[in-house]
Structures are given as structure tokens and as C-alpha cells.
């Protein structure tokens, strides 16, 4: 029983990493911008966050530095794709490659650096509950903040005026432009906000989740987050669920191996992807559902005045 509680705890932790980045990408894509640079942004944020924590000794400073690095990378992406109308896919990929190379370059001196003793977290009172305590209430605060963020984002996108404007920019920038909204500025802001969240995820990885810096340590999580946003049909609650599903199956396969289940470990390693693709296919069966949810101008550049 206890092992399952710990499995649940590990699932939430693993899911948070992907969820944070995916929620950031969701903001981007709702505004009509595809961000293929997520992996590079997360890597840059991971080294920035790690370095900041190593110097300051504070996790919070590290996480903020990560957000800053992510936002800065996103600003570069936004400037290129929104202001100069470069191809979103090519630019994003270039930025991803740049982030991978640059973070490795900047991080050369940090591979041997270690952060101080890592604090453990517990919600007072609740963490002492049997089973539920270790399963749910001994997490880093960001795990809970991510859930709150998904809820807030749902409300903001569907119930607030600003959220409506953001969606309008992603659905029909021409219409939003005609109504007098500064489409490019809104898109740029959305890209930067999304980048900051990707950055937060990257810093979470290097400061909290695996407190070390090594080249390429994000190891594809940015791409998974990207896939997750479409798998979740651009809805925050589903993004969260998808991230936990992915994190859960990832942890489950290790758990099964640890329990001595006689399944080829190679097959188990494949499971998280298989499960995610399976759900993706099941959802994609209903084409109109996807079309109804997908931002209509996703990936399309917008020229005001054309």
C-alpha cells in the first residue's frame, strides 16, 4: 500500500515538470504561435536556474532566473516569428538547437558543481495523514502551484476578457486586428509568458527534480510537452491530466521492474509513449472535436495591413 502512495507522489512530481512546460506552450499556441524551441528554452533555463541557485543558495532565485532565461529566449523567438514573420517551425527548431548548444557551452564549468543540502517539503498537518500524507502532501510547492495554474488558466481563457482576446488572436488575428487589438503585441506577450513557464519547468528540473547540471539533461521533455498540448486539445485541465498520465506510466514502468514483474524492460520503457499515442489516437478519432478546439490560425504568421 505504501509503495503505491510513493508511486503516486513520484507521478505528481514527474508530471509537474512536463505540465508546467505544456501549460506555457498552451498559452503560446492559443495565441497562434507554435513554439518548437521549448526544449532549448528549458535547457537554457535549467543552466540559468542551476547557476543562480549555486551562487545565491536559494531555490527561489534559481527558479526565477530560469523563468527569466526562458522569457528571454521566448522574446527572441517572438521577435523573429511575430515581428519579422519568419517561419515558426524553422525558427523554433533553430532556437531549440541553439539552446542545446549554448546551454552546454555556458554550463561547461557547472558539471562538477553541487547545490547545498536539498530541503524537504511537507504541508503541516496534512502530511502526517496515513497514506494520503506521503502520497500527496510532501511535495515541492510548485507541484501545487501547477495545479492552481491550470485551474487559473482555464478560468482566464474561458471567463475573462483578456483570455477571450488572446483566443481571438489565435483564432482570427484579422478579426482581432479589425477590432483594434494590437495582435502582434499580444502574440509577443503570449510567447514571452509561455517561455517563462517553459523556463520555470527547466529550472525545476535542474534545481529541484534532478539537482545537477549536465548537458542535455532535459532529455526530450520539451518535445513531450509540445506533443501534450495538442494531445490535450489545447485545454489546461487535459494538459494536466496528460502530464500526470505520462509521468505516471513513466514511474509505473520502473515500479513494475522494481517489483520484479517479468516483462521486458525495453517494452516497459516504451509504455509512456505508447500510452500517450494511444490516447492521442482515441481523441483524434473525433475530427470535428479537434477542429473545434484547435486555434484556427495556429502557426500562421500575421501581417497587419495585408
Amino acid at each position, binding site marked *: 500500500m505504501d509503495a503505491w502512495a510513493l508511486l503516486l507522489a*513520484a507521478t505528481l512530481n514527474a508530471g509537474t*515538470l512536463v505540465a508546467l512546460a505544456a501549460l506555457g506552450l498552451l498559452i503560446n499556441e492559443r495565441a497562434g504561435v507554435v513554439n518548437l524551441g521549448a526544449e532549448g528554452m528549458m535547457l537554457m533555463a535549467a543552466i540559468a536556474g542551476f547557476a543562480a541557485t549555486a551562487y545565491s543558495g536559494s531555490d527561489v532565485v534559481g527558479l526565477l532566473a530560469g523563468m527569466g532565461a526562458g522569457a528571454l529566449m521566448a522574446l527572441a523567438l517572438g521577435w523573429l516569428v511575430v515581428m519579422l514573420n519568419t517561419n515558426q517551425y524553422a525558427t523554433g527548431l533553430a532556437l531549440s538547437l541553439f539552446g542545446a548548444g549554448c546551454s552546454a557551452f555556458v554550463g561547461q564549468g557547472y558539471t562538477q558543481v553541487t547545490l547545498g543540502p536539498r530541503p524537504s517539503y511537507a504541508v503541516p498537518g496534512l502530511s502526517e495523514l496515513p497514506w494520503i500524507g506521503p502520497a500527496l502532501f510532501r511535495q515541492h510547492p510548485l507541484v501545487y502551484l501547477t495545479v492552481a495554474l491550470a485551474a487559473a488558466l482555464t478560468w482566464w481563457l474561458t471567463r475573462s476578457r483578456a483570455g477571450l482576446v488572446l483566443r481571438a488572436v489565435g483564432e482570427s488575428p484579422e478579426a482581432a486586428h479589425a477590432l483594434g487589438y494590437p495582435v502582434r503585441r499580444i502574440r509577443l506577450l503570449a510567447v514571452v509568458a509561455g517561455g517563462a513557464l517553459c523556463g520555470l519547468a527547466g529550472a525545476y528540473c535542474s534545481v529541484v527534480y534532478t539537482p545537477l547540471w549536465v548537458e542535455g539533461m532535459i532529455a526530450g521533455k520539451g518535445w513531450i510537452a509540445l506533443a501534450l498540448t495538442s494531445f490535450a486539445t489545447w485545454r489546461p485541465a487535459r494538459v494536466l491530466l496528460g502530464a500526470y498520465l505520462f509521468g505516471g506510466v513513466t514511474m509505473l514502468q520502473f515500479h513494475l521492474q522494481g517489483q520484479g514483474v517479468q516483462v521486458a524492460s525495453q517494452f516497459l520503457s516504451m509504455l509512456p509513449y505508447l500510452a500517450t499515442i494511444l490516447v492521442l489516437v482515441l481523441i483524434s478519432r473525433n475530427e470535428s472535436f479537434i477542429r473545434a478546439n484547435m486555434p484556427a490560425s495556429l502557426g500562421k504568421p500575421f501581417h497587419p495591413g495585408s
Partner: protein
Amino acid sequence: MSLSCLTSSNAVRGTAWCAAGVSHAPDGPVPGEARPRAARRTVRRAWLAAAAAMVMLAACGKKEDTPAASSAPGAAASPAASASAPLQVAFAYVGPVGDGGWSFAHDNARKAVEKEFGDRIKTTFVEKVPEGGDAEHVFRDLVQQGNTLVFGTTFGYMEPMLKVAADSPHVKFEHATGYKQSANMRTYDSRTYEGAYLAGVVAGAMTKSNRLGVVGSIPIPEVIRNINSFALGARSTNPKATVTVVWVNEWFNPPQETNAAQTLINAGADVLMQNTDSSAVLQTAEKNGKYAFGWDSDMSSYGPKAHLASAVVNWAPYYSASIKAVLDGTWSAGPGKHSWWGVKEGAIDLVALNDVVPAEVKARVEKVKAGLKDGSFVIWKGPVVGQDGQVMLAKDQVADDNFLQGLKSYVQGVEGQAPSGK
């Protein structure tokens, strides 16, 4: 692979473009892309890809050419040696030199021989060379640059190196962990399992739950051999110890290594060992107040409390011997030319033992090391019983290298089934 989840034709095209941009400078629009409307965008995209390629080259294509003058302590003493051109020695690594593990260990050895030979050699390295086809270009390139001794440091370089070796008979090739040799290519490896055994001796003595955990990389005989040796070592000091293995099926993926380590700790393991290349397992143990080991390189700084010891590989003795042989003109290769070095040759060691390890355990480690050095102690000596209860080695039977290289199943004390077994 997750990119394919987004299979919009644009994304795929984008990938192709960037790949092209990195390996060669883009030399014009790709045939399928030459539609008039897209032409302008294409140019811009090509420019971007080229820019990215340049940045990438600047950022990670660093090749360290030794400044001969600055790192040559014996330069003045040996004018004769510096008169002739230095021997050009190249190294290809699979990981980044900053991985703190496998490639890091090779690079430390490169630095050591550089110091040892001064201006008689000139070393170059290329890191992050993928296993397989791309490696061939890298090796051809290294030959082209005038290197006459080339070290390839991962198993997957075997076929590419053989190919290039056949075309470059004047160049000498050394391939780590492989088993195919040719007229100008030989192989070398280190008995990492001896380090695993030594770590096991410590682990068995330190565990309180009698449950040890191993984060396995890829289930090949080398790794299975390490896990088995770790179990043999642990059960030599604690017959009740059992070993649980969780495979991540990758050499280097810190978040996954963290997940696997956490799972083992959750399942009750209190001493962890790993065959993966990063320090993530050690750090996870540190976070959870458990014990773990460093692997390949000294990792004590990553988790001062958790770190019991590091099983290190020291490639310097072999590299030094090989370079010396080339300089002396005694280097030879050919079928069967394989060196498998261990504690005896100074290639394997267990270092940086933690103060919490009791003195008698430390003494035992020293005794095993001494025994391995003078040949009075053999790790794989019967009786060794397999996991299924069948005898693998009868009493006093000593395993030969063929036996060790073909190990596919677990010994008694390891739980679960070896993925490559049966």
C-alpha cells in the same frame, strides 16, 4: 520521436532543413521546396539554419588543440623529440566531456597522457559523436586532419572504425569495449566488474534493509556482468543481501535515472549502484538520506553524505602504454589483439571511501584489491550459483574471459529476470 506526434508537413520539413543546415552549409533550396511563393521564405529559412549551424559549431564543436609550448614541462629537456613532428592522437567520445562519468574519465586520461608526453604528442578530441553511421564521417575527418593514432571510446563505433581503418592503413586505431580487430585496429576494455565487486563488498556491509538497488543502463553482457559482480561482492560480506535492478535502457538520461533511483528507494533499497553515466542516482540517494556509489569517475562531490565510494576507471595507463608503443615503433594490431585491464594494471580502482565505512570494511576492500593485483584472489571463482539455482561455476572453477564476456543471466541474489536472458 515525439515530434512525429505533431506530424504537420511543415514540422517535418523544418526538421530536414535544420539537419541539413548543421551538417553542411545549405547550398540552395531543397528541390521539393522550390515553389515561387515560398522562395523568399526559403532563403530566410536557409539563412536561419545556417546561422543556427554556425552558432552550434561555435558552441559545441570545440576541439582542443594542445598549445605545445604551454603544456610541455619537458620541452627544453628533450630537444630531439621536439625536432620531429609530434604524434597526433585523436579521441572520439560518445558523451559530452562534462558528463562527469564515462566520457569524462576518458578525457581525464587524455589530459594525463598529454601531461606525460608533453610536446611529443598533440591531442584532439571530438565529443558527442553519435554511435553508428555519423561516426564514420568523424573518423574520416580525424584521419584527414593528420591524426595517426585514433581512439574510439564506445562500443557503437566498431563498424565505422573498421571501415575507416581499412581505408587508412597508415593510421592506428584503438577501439574501446569492442571485439573486432583488423591489421591496424585493436581493442581494449577495462574490467569494470572488478570495481562493481569492490563496491558490492562495501554495499553489503552498509545495508540495513539487506536490499540493494541497481539502476541498469542497457542490458548487454558488460552491464549484466557488473550487476552480478556487485551482487557477488555484496554477498561476500552479507549473505542476506539481495539486489533489485531497474533498467532505464539509456546510458545517459538524468531525469529517468532519478526516477529509477527513486523507485528503488521506495521499494526499500538503502544502498544504490548504477551503470548509467550521470551522477543522478547518487544525488537522489543524497536527497533521500540513503547511500550510493560513484561510477566511472570520482563523484564524491555530488553527494558527500550518500557517497560511499567511487568505482573509477582509469584509462591513462592503457593510453600511455599505447602511445608509448607507437612512439617506440612497437605498436601492433591484428585479430585477437585485445587488452582487458583491471585493478592489476591500475585501470580499475575503488576510491574516495566515505568516513562512515567501518575500518574493517575498508581493510577488506584493500585486501581484495591486493589479491586482484597479485593474482591470489579471483572474483569469478566457483562455486557460483545462478539465479535459477543452477551451478554456473563449480567449486574452484575459474571463469575465463569468454565466460565473462558471454554472461547473460543473473547470479543468485539478484531479483527479476535479466532482459537479455532466454
